């Protein structure tokens, strides 16, 4: 069985999509139910800044990887192994 490394990347993107929904939910709650003060706004902006920074750092590492690498699993039934092409 052979598949590309990008499968894991797509799974990661799926996680990011769900994560983004929760982020938007959290920001919505802060802005709707928090007191309309500068501290609420600052905390929300700080949270978003750190989240964006983490995404940027992740992108920096992820963009350097060759996701087209083929992965072969279970080439033979007698000696199952992982072979990297």
């Amino acid at each position, binding site marked *: 069985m052979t598949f590309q*490394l990008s499968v894991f990347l797509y799974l990661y993107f799926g996680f990011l999509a769900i*994560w983004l929904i929760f982020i938007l939910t959290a920001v919505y709650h802060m802005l709707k139910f928090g007191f309309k003060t500068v501290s609420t706004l600052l905390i929300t902006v700080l949270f978003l800044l750190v989240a964006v920074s983490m*995404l940027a*750092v992740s992108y920096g590492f992820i963009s350097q990887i060759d996701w087209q690498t083929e992965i072969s699993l279970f080439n033979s039934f007698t000696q199952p192994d992982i072979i990297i092409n």
Partner: protein
Amino acid sequence: MLKKIAFFVFLTILPLVLFFVIAMSQPQFFGGKITYPLMILGASAYYLFIWLFFFFSFIDYYLDVWLITNERIIDIEQKGFFSRVISEHKIFRIQDVTSEVHGVLPTILRYGEVYVQTAGTKQRFNFRQIPNPNKVRDMIIKLVERKKREIQNEEKNNI
């Protein structure tokens, strides 16, 4: 909240400790064409999740509000997302106010709990981990006494 912050700091440091342990014992682990990408994706997903989880905990703490006025006390409690409970009670119906400070850190940093006993449907309001609970207790008691005197004066004037 301090315990939660310590917990999240521990969760942040844990993968770094694991990283150094594996780097010392099996340095070739990080050079693999499959292990390195998986490690990057895993670390990214882990830290993004931790940050989100921390913000959820902070929102649960930040959106809990207790308001004391000269007419009423209001308890706004955020119970997770999409669940918010607001309780309100007239101040002259307060029967008993108790403040508690337990532990070394609460004593030094002067924070604790205030319990307000009322005669309403929700009989007890709990103010958790608030600064200067003794001062808050004194303030509530003074407000209650003042309101009761006002009501008594109004009743006398009406008679």
